[in-house]
């Protein structure tokens, strides 16, 4: 088995009297796509939010490549190389593709006091990236994101993670609201990212999408891990659905 990239140990989270996570152990290895499945309220989102720094755990530890790390906010997570792509693709639709790609990490040019963005570099890099992830349509990097389709927006988010060489890309429902073709595009980007050395966590309600692309499936139910090494090649969708709902097979 490959080496650990991220290991979360004994992660617990309560919102007042409500327990969202009750001591979860979850690991992602180098160079793999993990499917994280579970019903509504199983704790998938909370687990991912803890990893991406938007929520802090009540208790538990996180290790990256064997070293204990502290993720207090999103900046910490990004600095550790963890990129999260949310379902409604967290882009600022009024801004251009290039400005979105570099948001928060804009390259500067000239004396620091002028705080001037290097827009030429931003646009050039963005143009190259769009081609690399397979957007063949001729879209200038200065186009506002509001002009893009849902699939293209997800592509921009993934391009951002690839460019900043994130070790771990977390995709939270990236195929929601996408058409068939666009979904295939996103899945293709995911395989490409893995093949170029990244690890990914894929959260989706649509198990069919998960089955097409992941190497391993982890299932959460009511805040606990109930299966963490399901190989999609040696099981069926129905079997996984039974693990998710906790209903034993009939007959």
């Amino acid at each position, binding site marked *: 088995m490959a080496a650990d990239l991220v290991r979360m140990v004994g992660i617990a989270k309560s919102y007042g009297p409500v327990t969202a996570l009750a001591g979860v152990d979850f690991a992602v290895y180098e160079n793999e796509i993990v499917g994280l499945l579970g019903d509504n309220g199983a704790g998938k989102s909370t687990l991912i939010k803890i990893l991406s720094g938007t929520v802090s755990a009540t208790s538990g530890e996180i290790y990256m490549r064997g070293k204990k790390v502290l993720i207090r906010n*999103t900046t910490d997570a990004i600095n550790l190389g963890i990129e999260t792509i949310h379902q409604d693709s*967290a882009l600022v*639709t009024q801004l251009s593709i290039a400005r979105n790609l570099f948001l928060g*990490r*804009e390259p500067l040019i000239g004396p620091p006091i002028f705080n001037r*963005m290097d827009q030429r570099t931003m646009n050039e890099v963005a143009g190259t990236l769009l081609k690399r992830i397979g957007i063949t349509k001729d879209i200038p990097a*200065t*186009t506002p994101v*509001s002009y893009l389709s849902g699939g293209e927006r997800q592509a921009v988010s993934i391009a951002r993670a690839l460019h900043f060489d994130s070790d771990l890309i977390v995709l939270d429902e990236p195929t929601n609201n996408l058409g068939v073709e666009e979904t295939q595009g996103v899945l293709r980007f995911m395989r490409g990212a893995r093949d170029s050395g990244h690890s990914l966590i894929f959260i989706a309600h649509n198990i069919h999408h998960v089955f097409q692309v992941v190497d391993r499936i982890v299932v959460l139910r009511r805040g606990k891990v109930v299966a963490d090494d399901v190989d999609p090649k040696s099981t069926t969708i129905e079997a996984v659905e039974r693990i998710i709902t906790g209903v034993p097979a009939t007959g």
Partner: protein
Amino acid sequence: MNLANRPGSLLVRRLTSTPEFLPFTLVVVLVVVFASLTPNFLSRGNISNLLAFTPELGMIALGMTVLMTSGEFDLSVGSVFGFTPVLMWTLFNEGATSLEVALLISLAVAVLIGFVNGTFVTRLKIPSFLVTLGMMMTIRGTALYTTSGFPQRTWRAESWLMDLVAGSFYIGEFRLYASIFWFLGFALVLGYILTQSKIGNWIQAAGGNPVSARARGVKVGLTKTWLFILTAFMAAYAGITSSIRVAAANPNSGTGYELEVIAMVVIGGTALGGGRGTIIGTVLGVFMLRMMRNGIVLVGVPGLAYNIFIGVTILTMMALQSYLARRHPSGAG
């Protein structure tokens, strides 16, 4: 009618999709209409007059543009416009300090007001409407109470500062005020910040999608707090400029300015909800409303009818912008 398939329509589309297109067109229309109705409109005296009072509201509008781009607005600007000159001239008239120090103190107080606004909005998560409404009444009340409602005199002062801020000089027979240069200077700096700088990218992102901006590591709260400070500073500076020009600091001055300024900014093409702002548009919006006020009086329409024109203009502009926005999905980038 399908415009997209007609030759040459690409240029038209690009032009009409810029947010500055409408205000620019209207400014041109206004100049033509007023100039044809009354020759006085383009007279030397009237243009000079227009350039004297336009920068005062204009400077507030510049600050408000950047603040609104970040998704907030400030109703206390009119009160700050009235209060800070009162404070400055009171300090000077009472012999407490020199005029220079009094200016610095009142600008510092404006910075503090902006800081309080920003902190209440970003830390306590109270909508800017409520916070700045409260601040508007607090500051106006302070100005009225401390002066018992009487204007502060300014004519005893002789200082290089007054010339620098709001002095005037003649080019030939044309009287030009220093404030127009301050206005243009501020417009250049803020236009640069909004379109070229990294901070500008953060400002637009904070207004466009604060949740995702925060997820990218953008310090949304801090950015907005600085913009509240900037807006209060601009309002204070504009108020001081005005007090020097009219030679009085009236605790009532600036009443109602907040809404007129927001109207200028929105007419200029800045989105009321944030995420998109244009300094060029605001400069056009400022000139448009000031020219209307001026032109209406010159043409002989009763001054009391002014608000009818402004109201109808705002409604028309919004309708046209919404029509254009539907033709071009996001207006413009």
